[in-house]
């Protein structure tokens, strides 16, 4: 893990609402693993805390993230331009790669809204002999990012793209209509969606690994602010930033 000042290579809209920011880092591009995040200091003085972002893609020595403008930090970030510098700390957290083994045939990637972020990088590094199905859910079309993904199935709340309904409805339908062998879920998105998908995974006896989100002050284990309650186990809580962000959903209280 390093703290680096990097240079922005590009900032462009992937959809009307979602931006992709690319910067150059030899270090991060050589060590980062799918599912990890970087912690960005978006402004000198404001906002105070860094903001965590999943690594969306790595190409050569370029790293990219995707985000939509929802609050103070992303507003500042959206105003950056090519050539500006950025203070990034990473890579942080564990990787989805830790949870890939021989006990499943098909990976169900499920991304809710901007929760799609870790999947392109994961797709790139996924064992080629395994099947991937990528389910994307969003409120509307403008929140659906498909770049770098495989075998994509889309749902939107308003039906503006793909299936109209929740991403879980889409998954259920697809699961009933097809035979995917032994499935493992890899999910990322709003907590409510992750809860629902994790429950469903349980009912169909599939393992489920979720990348969790929560407010973080440090992202590296210093503040203990990012606790998640563990089911069973010796300790009551684990730290999302350090012991996650990816957990088997059965082991934590979402």
């Amino acid at each position, binding site marked *: 893990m390093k*703290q680096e000042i990097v240079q922005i290579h590009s900032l462009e809209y992937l959809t009307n609402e979602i931006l992709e920011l690319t910067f150059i880092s030899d270090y991060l591009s050589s060590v980062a693993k799918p599912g990890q995040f970087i912690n960005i200091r978006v402004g000198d003085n404001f906002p105070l805390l860094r903001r965590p972002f999943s690594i969306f893609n790595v190409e050569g020595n370029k790293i990219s993230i995707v985000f939509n403008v929802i609050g103070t930090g992303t507003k500042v970030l959206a105003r950056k331009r090519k050539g500006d510098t950025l203070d990034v700390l990473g890579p942080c957290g564990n990787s989805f790669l830790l949870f890939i083994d021989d006990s499943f045939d098909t990976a169900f990637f499920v991304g809710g809204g901007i929760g799609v972020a870790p999947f392109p990088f994961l797709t790139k590094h996924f064992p080629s002999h395994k099947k991937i199905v990528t389910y994307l859910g969003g409120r509307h079309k403008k929140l659906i990012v498909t770049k770098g993904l495989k075998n994509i199935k889309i749902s939107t709340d308003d039906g503006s793209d793909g299936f109209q309904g929740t991403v879980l409805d889409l998954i259920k339908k697809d699961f009933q209509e097809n035979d995917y062998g032994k499935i493992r879920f890899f999910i990322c998105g709003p907590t409510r969606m992750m809860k629902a998908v994790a429950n469903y995974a349980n009912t169909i006896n599939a393992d489920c690994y979720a990348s969790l989100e929560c407010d*973080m002050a440090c992202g590296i284990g210093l503040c203990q602010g990012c606790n998640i309650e563990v089911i069973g186990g010796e300790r009551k809580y684990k730290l999302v930033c350090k012991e996650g962000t990816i957990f088997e959903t059965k082991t934590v209280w979402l």
Partner: protein
Amino acid sequence: MKESFNLRNVEFKNRILVASGTFGYGDEVPDLVDIAKLGGIVTKSLSMKPRDGNPSPRITETSSGMLNSIGLANIGVHKFINEKLPTLKKSNSTIIANIAASSVEEYCSVLELLDGQEGVHGFEINVSCPNVKEGGLSFGTDVKLVSLITKELRKRTQKPLIIKLTPNVTHISDFARACETEGADAVSVINTVIGMSVNINTRKPKIATTTGGLSGPAIKPIALAKVYETCNAIKIPVIGIGGITSWEDAVEFFIVGASMVQIGTANFINPATGISVVEGVKQYCEKNGFDDVEQIIKSLQTDKTISIVDSWL
């Protein structure tokens, strides 16, 4: 340029420490920070038994600050001694063990366990803890209890004993005087300020425990005023804490009277803040012709013609 500071025969390389609860046990960031360059490390508050800490959410950002209610989650003093101290000893750092407890007895027992440990160079006592006997009221807001804790702990150690005061009182100087009287070697000023924040959509508090501790740049002016008040009340050293993010901030605390400073929240944003503060303070002194940081301490130039009676806000 003399940067070091001596407290009850313990030599601190320089006057910049990292604050309790903001740097783990000193072993979290080896890649990022060369901790041997810091004046010292104050550990996360240690209690007798391990503590899980509070439910989530535990933190939230505020304007130039953050609220936390970690609940003093810690591995407990035994695990600290067995699992953390051996590596810390090798780090060539000055280690101050911070102690939290829910009774005077617990403070004493934890200190006794640590006092025999070679790698522990001194103690900082977190009195901003709920006194279980009194239904959870903080020890730190009761002068008599702070006196008692200081007195009992002083009997039990010859190592530096630092009492960390809470700012959530009317006259912090009363508390500082009590610590001085009972033999403390220094006081740390300040712990976090009580604050709260609400999510207007869910109408729930943004941290699970409703109120929490405010830290970061937002509280720097408050911390400086408390350090100033304390330095004018006692002769033992004061360790300044609160919102320090740069060497300039540290210099403000020195000028006001702090003998050492601690960096808290800034570590979350830049874990190497301490190192850059050490460098910056050194350069400031050199540039201004001081050959010992001591020379800037308590060098505030106030206008003596302005009396308190006149100074309505």
